[in-house]
């Protein structure tokens, strides 16, 4: 499989990265080079093989059902959460107007 400029433009849009036409044109051969190389995976016989989900067997845990059990990840830290926002206003993240 290989990509063309229309496909790269579509992927870039899905990934929300604005690319110029020149950047798209440059990306096409680069991605095709990588894709042609990873193509060799298709020759591996994977009949009956499950895809890897966890390299080291582990079980999922539940945390204690307590509000703010860990002060670092609990609530009540609005100032800290907003501290790095490019545009924090009135205790919220500010974004351009969204009208649909």
């Amino acid at each position: 499989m290989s990509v063309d400029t229309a496909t790269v433009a579509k992927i870039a849009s899905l990934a929300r990265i604005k690319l110029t036409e020149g950047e798209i044109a440059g990306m096409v051969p680069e991605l095709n080079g990588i894709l042609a190389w990873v193509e060799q995976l298709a020759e591996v016989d994977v009949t009956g093989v499950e895809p890897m989900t966890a390299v080291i067997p582990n079980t999922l845990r539940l945390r204690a059902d307590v509000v703010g059990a860990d002060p670092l990840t609990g609530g009540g830290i609005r100032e800290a959460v907003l501290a790095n926002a490019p545009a924090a206003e009135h205790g919220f993240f500010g974004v351009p107007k969204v009208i649909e």
Partner: protein
Amino acid sequence: MTDLTDLTLAAIRDGVAGGDFTAREVAEGFNAAVAQAQAALNAFIVTTPEKALEAAAKVDADRAAGKPLGKLAGVPIGMKDLFATKGVQTTAASHILEGFTPPYESTVSQKLWDAGAGMLGKLNLDQFAMGSSNETSAFGNVISPWRRPGDTAALAPGGSSGGSSAAIAARLCPAATGTDTGGSIRQPAAFTGISGIKPTYGRCSRWGIVAFASSLDQAGPMARTVQDCAIMLEVMAGFDAKDATSLDLPVPAWEQGLNADLRGKKVGIPREYRLDGLSADVAKSWDDGIAWLKDAGAEVVDISLPHTKYALPAYYIIAPAEASSNLARYDGVRYGLRDLPQGAGLQEMYAATRAAGFGAEVKRRILMGTYVLSAGFYDAYYTQAQKVRTLISRDFAEAFAACDVILAPTAPSAAFALGEKSADPLEMYLNDVFSVPASLAGLPAMSVPSGLDSQGLPLGLQLIGKPFDEQGVLNAGLAIEQRAGFSAKPGKWW
């Protein structure tokens, strides 16, 4: 008085505890070395001499008061700028996070400070840890302190932990944190003549580490000796409820368990790693390693890891796929850069922000990852790669039925010059050929220096262990370290 910056981590710890010198003297020595080298090597993105002094003052006061000292009391270290550090800019070497000042501390860095270590600064790296030469940083290349004799060409310190490796080799810090997704601790360690270990996946908490490919990312120590790595790993490892993949296991006393007597141990030599066209220098280093491990009492056995050639292509599907998902968080809303063109809506703001903030390699990998996860291609690429990953992991499990630890080269060559491989992404990816398989299988793996190649540059040997057997890896590493007698260090030109 000896030059304190030439001491190992263990010697600093013991010297401070024994009163041979103060933690302040150590911190001052390294702060000066950092400041003096910064313009030439660019190993740090920000330096924090006041943090190093502050930690040292506490250690000196504690010692004077007779209080017990931590395992790293008085040891100043470098912190890869992928670890969130409270109140100190954390960038992942990307413009998109420039100015980001975390209001919290990563689990691993907090453990290091709690053990009495101090921070010399935040170390440069490949942008979002994506790279093998430290040429993708938005804050400029790191220059290796090593040079080919009679040549001033700037060499790569390896990547992605290139600031860490350069700083340790140049004696700007005795040890540093690294992270390893496909070789980012081991390859830079090999390129600069130092040691580094990536523990079993889940040993070190990923909480507070900027995510690249979460099923692969593991933190680990980099230092000049195996013992130093063991000491630092003991502090960095341990269960953390804030990381869903953290291993709930006790942390072994790795330093105390160090033992280079390998009698009764079997070392596997994977025949598939002997690539066509393997450089004579690397082949010789590998043969030296085999002889040293035999000398340490180990039995050497031939093993097969049949899916080795598929590890790299599988990695370059899985890692970009996870990266494309992880890096979706950089949206110009909650933290980091925002680029809001005149009249732009929310979607245009996202696209403009990410275009302005991410470097070329990061964009390439996000696009690659987005493509392999997109409708119609997911099974052919991503699911197939994860199945191949299962086979690679199975290869190791079967090999470990016949051996205790695996010996292989760390990288296919010594350090290359900056610019030499950066034009072709694929050629750069191939540098990870020996390090990626262990990452895909989540295994502990370490690089130790083996000697200098015919150009006078360091080479590393890699030891890969069974899950949870960091001790076996460290012990085999120690056996090599003792026999390699690697004492070369870069001549000071900076």
